[in-house]
């Protein structure tokens, strides 16, 4: 029982309780299914707050550790090892926070096979939590790969017309990276006689040339997940086809698993290799920022636009991480949260309008702000947050990242930071373009089209407001007063940066 009552164990596996309850609810009682899932995710969120209350930010070690021997026969040393520190606490909270929001967003959007949907969704939450909490490489890998499965179903069953293609592509693409990581994990496990991440970091004795290969193997898994240019090809497909809740979680949490992996594993486990790789990663990140921004501008499908914008945004995160100074890394971690909130919210909003119009072609929209003032205003705020307007969350992240990258010793040049700052301009270009095409200008043809079939396009209803307003609160909070968020991670970030052998 002691094992089950560990806070982190509870946090990770509580959604399974929801899964169990769901199994006993008949599939035609859709509302009961929805409320159960929502309840389970809300309780999980509550647990995450409880965990937060017990978390001591000034301690750089892992906290609330749940550590038990798991498989220890025949030279194996695999542990059930969950732990939390400043690098992961925010992502854990983000996951717990976005899950109920995503479930709320499916309330009317998902009408078919509600039970399956909720089951997969809660399973996905378990996987995501586990990824952020696991401190044993084997355990981590299990959670990491496990997230693929429910997400695959979410895209493949409830997605758009090309959902199968997208789901399979998502699955294979991500798996391609992670199996290389599997080899590296095994190598580390054999070499270090343990899979426990803190122990491996403490040993810190991997030879430099091997570090390089291990770094690459881990990076392959994470870079695909992020996705870093040029490994982003699965993302537009997955995002465009995924149902709203899927897109929200995909953009909000799943992509962060990649960047988180870099912080949690690549940097501390392979410090020399990381420093060696920093200029290259920075180059790719910069290309990604500019490329993502430009490609996003040329999109006609709004979801695709947002999807490509993720390539650009996560380029910033990568740039910050490999700046390897406190500003860069802290900014990157905060930017992960920001991107989760902003892009998650963008997908939510796009989903809300899509539910009414059933089209994502921007050209048929136009002038919606007039018809749906509340929706338009919220969209505007979220868009501005996404393009990094000061005073909103995006700016705090992007600014600190660029600041860090500009003075980074590991990247060695500030050209990348300057070029990436150009990405800030381009962000304005594509975000404003999207906002204009949908909400400004003369009334689009879709308005009459929808009217023909019913009441016409309506503004947000109460449920939708409840879904989106919490995100808005954080958008402002982080933008204006990010101190609590930085405080949570600052000591851990400083500790991490201190470990890196920066020239």
């Amino acid at each position, binding site marked *: 029982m002691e094992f089950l009552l560990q806070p982190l164990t509870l946090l990770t596996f509580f959604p399974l309780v929801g899964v169990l309850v769901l199994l006993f609810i008949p599939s035609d009682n859709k509302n009961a299914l929805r409320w159960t899932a929502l309840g389970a995710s809300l309780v999980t969120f509550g647990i995450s707050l409880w965990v937060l209350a017990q978390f001591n930010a000034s301690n750089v070690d892992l906290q609330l550790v749940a550590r038990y021997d798991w498989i220890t026969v025949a030279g194996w040393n695999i542990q059930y090892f969950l732990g939390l520190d400043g690098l992961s606490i925010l992502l854990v909270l983000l996951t717990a926070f976005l899950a109920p929001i995503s479930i709320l967003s499916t309330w009317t959007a998902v009408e078919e096979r509600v039970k399956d949907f909720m089951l997969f969704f809660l399973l996905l939450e378990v996987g995501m939590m586990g990824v952020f909490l696991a401190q044993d490489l084997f355990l981590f890998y299990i959670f990491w790969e496990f997230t693929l499965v429910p997400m695959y179903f979410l895209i493949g069953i409830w997605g758009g017309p090309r959902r199968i293609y997208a789901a399979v592509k998502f699955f294979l693409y991500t798996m391609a990276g992670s199996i290389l990581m599997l080899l590296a994990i095994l190598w580390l496990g054999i070499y270090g006689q343990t899979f426990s991440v803190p122990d491996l970091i403490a040993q810190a004795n991997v030879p430099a040339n091997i570090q390089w290969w291990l770094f690459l193997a881990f990076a392959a898994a994470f870079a695909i997940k992020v996705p870093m240019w040029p490994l982003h090809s699965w993302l537009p497909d997955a995002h465009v086809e995924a149902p709203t809740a899927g897109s929200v979680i995909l953009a909000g949490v799943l992509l962060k698993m990649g960047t988180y992996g870099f912080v949690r594993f690549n940097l501390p486990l392979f410090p020399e290799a990381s420093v060696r790789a920093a200029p290259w990663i920075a180059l790719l990140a910069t290309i990604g920022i500019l490329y993502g921004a430009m490609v996003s*501008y*040329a999109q006609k499908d709004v979801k695709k636009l947002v999807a490509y914008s993720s390539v650009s945004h996560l380029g910033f995160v990568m740039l910050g991480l490999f700046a390897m100074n406190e500003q860069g890394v802290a900014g990157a971690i905060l930017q992960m949260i920001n991107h989760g909130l902003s892009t998650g919210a963008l997908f939510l909003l796009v989903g809300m309008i899509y539910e009414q119009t059933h089209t994502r072609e921007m050209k048929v929209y136009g002038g919606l702000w007039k018809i749906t003032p509340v929706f338009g205003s919220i969209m505007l705020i979220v868009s501005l947050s996404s393009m990094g307007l000061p005073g909103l969350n995006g700016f705090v992240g992007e600014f600190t990242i660029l600041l860090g990258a500009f003075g980074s010793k590991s990247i060695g040049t500030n050209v990348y930071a300057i070029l990436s700052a150009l990405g800030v301009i381009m962000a304005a270009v594509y975000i404003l373009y999207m906002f204009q095409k949908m909400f400004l200008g003369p009334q689009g043809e879709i308005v009459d089209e929808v009217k023909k079939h019913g009441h016409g396009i309506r503004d947000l209803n109460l449920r939708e407001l409840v879904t989106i307003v919490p995100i808005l609160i954080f958008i402002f909070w982080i933008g204006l007063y990010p101190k609590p968020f930085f405080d949570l991670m600052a000591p851990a970030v400083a500790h991490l940066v201190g470990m890196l052998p920066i020239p």
Partner: protein
Amino acid sequence: MLFSEATPSGFFFLAPWLVFAPVIGLLINIIFGGRFSEKVIGTVASLASGASFIVSVLLAWSLAAGGGHAVSVPFAEWMHIGSLELDWTFRVDSLSTTMMLVVSGVGTLIHIYAIGYMHEDVRFKNDLGRFRRFFVFLNLFIAAMMILVSGDSYLMLFVGWEGVGLCSFLLIGFWYEMDTLGRPSWANSNAGNKAFITNRVGDFGFLIAGFIMFWAFGSFQFDEVFEAARTVAPGIIVAITLFMLIGVAGKSAQIPLYVWLPDAMAGPTPVSALIHAATMVTAGVYLVTRSAELYMLVPQAQYIVAMTGAVTALFAATIAVGQYDIKKVLAYSTISQLGFMVAAVGMGAFVAGMFHLVTHAFFKALLFLSAGSVILGLERGHHHLAHAQHDDHGKGRKGKKDSHHEDEVFDPGDMRNMGGLRKTMPVTFWLYMIGTLALAGIFPFAGFWSKDEILADALKEGFTGVYWLLSIAAFFTAFYMGRQIWMVFFGEARHEAAAHAEESPRVMTVPLMVLAFLSVVGGALNLPGMHTLTLWLEHTIEVHAGEFVMSVAVISTLLALAAILLSWFIYGRDPLKAGQPDPLKKPLGFLFTGMENKWFVDEGYFAIVIGPFKRISQFLADVIDWRFWHDFVHDTVIAGAYNWFSNIALNRYADQQGIDAFANWLGSATKSLSATMRRVQNGFVRSYALSVLLGVVLIVGYLILK
């Protein structure tokens, strides 16, 4: 620290309320505005802005009482990461209070004016919900502008800097579903985007300057930066100041980033007055003044800033001559005047620049608002006319009339539709006249003093080139203002609407009168000999009192008068008739075509920057990312290779054409064997057996040969 540590007595603790007041105002309007009437909404917003003004006054008073020493009012921590320490701290010093007073003062007047203006505008454009939105945006603007001017660090300034950019975007595209004439169009929203994006280009420069600053000085806080700057290689400061200049060029509409400002006239007129004439666009001037200590260290950078301003001043003035839209003329005039200010602060004549900033705020706001009054007057006339016609002709000819209307949309801002408004709109006329004289720099109006100080400083500081450029620009200024006056208010009405134009209501004209008063007496702020403003700003920046140089004053006044005379000669003596081309067109030829078409700068940008950007984006997205990377590499090459490998190479090939295929593959080395195999026909069981044998041969062969 250059300022006193302990919070001094006085009202300094109120500093955050500069921002809170308008924020509270806008929140009230957002939350409860749905139930308010227009009047209440307007009042709430104006009160919020007014509260900000009162706070500004109290702060200024406290500052003066405290001897003018800068005070910083910490409010909250913002970003503390490693060596980066950023706080929300307000700075109250003579420079910031000056700006606060101007912003909130002019801002409040414009709020009040807008109650009347938007009532009319909304009536014409038939969207009542917009009224509330407008005032929310205006309050937001005041809040952002207050952050800009009261921030204690470059980064807080930047927050306001982008914030006002946002408001500018929102308000330019306020009537986002139409163009300036009310037709359904993307034009207004395009103008908004253009403004925001151009400003972002400038912000990029600002950001880079900030990064260099941080890594060179370790701080963004003004005093710390200035202190550290003295010990740093000048190369770094040149880089900082020049990157900052990009920001200035964006926000204050200087070459090469001025192009957004003329388009910004798509916004409602109060917006043009408040944001795009009086306050926001002067932020660049404020920034340079604020960074005076940096600029003073690097004369090269100063020279570049000054030349940028001077060239812009002249360039924009020439374009203003060729414009027909009443607001466009004023827009280019604003660019030109901003050029004056930038040139001034570039030369190190910070007081002169700030002085001109203040007076310009008064008279340009006055001019814009009066122009708005003119436009509404014409709208009313046109409306009146349309109703009258409608009543006269009745049903029978309605269809015809409607089609006629669609063909020829009435543009109430086009000066070619005006004429003779002196009679129908007398109040507006006089107000406009005062603004014009102030702008043209006629003694003793405000513009005279401030412009004169700039010119005098230019000579004194040895910027002769700048002096001449500005003087010529001043000549053009007087000329296009004269042209405007003659075209708008004199002669005969060139359109029926102008003939039926009506004067604007009190709520609009009263604020104008206040502004007119300020435009007349604004010069008193820094009269030669008294130097009130100089003494005031001295607390913050190193300045010197500008001298009054009689020769300069005489020359510039003479130039202005000559220009007005010339404009009378061309436009006033023989007023324009309806349909008649501009009299300058013939004598100036292609030069005038250039002025008319803004020297084709927009087209040039489109050809060089925007077009290629769009095409490259499209190319990257369609060809590279989708067709090549997504479809070809992933779907065809990778996925296809899987299937091909599976289908052809192994399965179908080996299993079904077994022997032949293998025999061919074995080649000449095992010719006899393959010959035997070839002779026998394909048989499946046997091809399986062959496979087994092949395995055996390979393994045993390997083991023997190894």
